[in-house]
């Protein structure tokens, strides 16, 4: 049985208590996108500024949610700021792979080894324990799905 310390690592609680890049950007010019988790009513707002090289020059996070969704959003904002959308896309893939390894092994089946992109997740590694609490995976991925949608919309 996984313990709470697997889920609520100190760095997660730190991001929950002191969320980075919390707030709003004027939209437009910033792109604003909302994401919802219909299961728990969590909502997130991502404000995104991209330069002509498709680099995220600024990002802000609004909305409300649990410690996992809020800290994941905070860590994400710190991780993607200054990166190009291609880099963010790789990071997103790596993060989701970390989240889904356990999903594919639910039910006791042996998970296929997942080919992780050569991406350093840094602080985001702290969220690895979330996969041991499957109902919380959606909390951790909400910000990332919302960001991906925002990038798609901004480049459309």
């Amino acid at each position: 049985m996984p313990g709470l310390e697997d889920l609520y690592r100190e760095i997660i609680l730190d991001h929950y208590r002191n969320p980075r890049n919390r707030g709003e950007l004027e939209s437009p010019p910033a792109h604003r996108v909302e994401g919802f988790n219909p299961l728990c009513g969590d909502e997130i707002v991502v404000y995104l500024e991209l330069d002509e090289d498709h680099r995220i020059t600024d990002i802000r996070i609004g909305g409300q949610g649990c410690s996992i969704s809020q800290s994941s959003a905070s860590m994400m904002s710190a991780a993607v700021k200054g990166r190009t959308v291609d880099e963010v896309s790789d990071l997103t893939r790596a993060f989701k792979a970390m989240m889904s390894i356990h999903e594919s092994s639910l039910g006791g089946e042996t998970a296929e080894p997942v080919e992780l992109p050569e991406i350093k997740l840094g602080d985001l590694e702290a969220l690895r324990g979330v996969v041991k609490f499957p109902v919380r995976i959606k909390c951790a991925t909400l910000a990332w799905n919302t960001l991906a949608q925002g990038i798609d919309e901004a480049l459309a």
Partner: protein
Amino acid sequence: MAMTTPLDVESIRADFPLLARSVHDTPIVYLDSAATSQKPTAVLDAMDSYYRTVNANVHRGVYYIAEQATNELEAAREKVRRFINAASVSEVIFTKNATESLNLIVQSWGRSNLAAGDVVVLSHMEHHANIVPWHMLVAERGIELRWIPLTADGQLDLTGLNSLLEGAKVLSVTAMSNVLGTLNPVRQLTDAARAVGAISIIDGCQSVPHTATDVQALGADFVAFSGHKLCGPTGIGVLWGREDLLAAMPPFIGGGEMIRDVRLDGFTCNDLPWKFEAGTPAIAEIIGLGAAVDYLTAVGMDAIRAHEHMLTEYTLRTLNDRFGDDITIHGPADPELRGGVFSFAFKDLHPHDISQILDQHAVCVRAGHHCAKPLMKLMGVGATARASVYLYNTTADIDALAEGLDATGAFFAF
């Protein structure tokens, strides 16, 4: 409260096998009966015995066990009839769940009686099951929905009821909020509806398991409830309706069982209640529901209500005394006005985080919007944590909840 003999909760708990288990090496504290109740051995045995010794399809079989299965199913219908004091078994229709019961009313009665501009009055505390079917009819028919607002302490605000009901064809409200615990003045509501010629529909999901229900005394035209919240199995619900209304309504789902005759050019409906029961019914579940109703009747619905009233008083006092301004329990403060459902906010913590820590203490509470998003929006929250009690809960369960909340507060202290 009327004087009733206190429940022997220890012996009741022995009837519910699940309550004996542990999670995380801790005896389970089940506080989520508003979502689904636990099942007594009597229900499990009735269903098991049906499958082991009686299993055969019902109605039309001439052989012995088919007749026995039919008799057991129809005996369960009679048990439910008595449990809610319906005038006739023709008025007791088995559905999949309360959601299907409500959809049946909307699709059958609604589509044959409501046209563009007709008014349906709902309340701000309804479950999605009593909102979405009406939205579907709005899209199809252009009916108008009006909403009874709430007071600050989570009661229906009935000051404008008469003007809301003006020209209305339907009033459809819950007898008890699954979020706030509020017990609504059903008779007052159904009287007001009848006075303007509107039919009234009562969502009894949270009330029927916890208080004695007399559908005739409620003055409603339809009452919907589910089996699994009253110690019965999942997959079985009930729609009670006034016989004259049901008789005039077209069928909801077509197929076997609901017909008297089928020709190449059409069909004739079966009698009530089978007209609304197309296909092989959930036989074991119906028999299980009959056993659940027997069980609750033997314990005594008034005794159950008295027990939960005591637990409600204890819960409100315990949590408020212990946590003061750190906790907000939504809904009426007066235990007379509410049942044993406690949605709360605690120290600005998210309900997910609260329920996660409580789970480590084997305390089962629900976290989410409780299928009442319009109410959540009105309350200004995305979600709440919700504890709810039933006949098998004790003050020790509430103490465990309080201990768990203490631990939750300590865990997230900053």
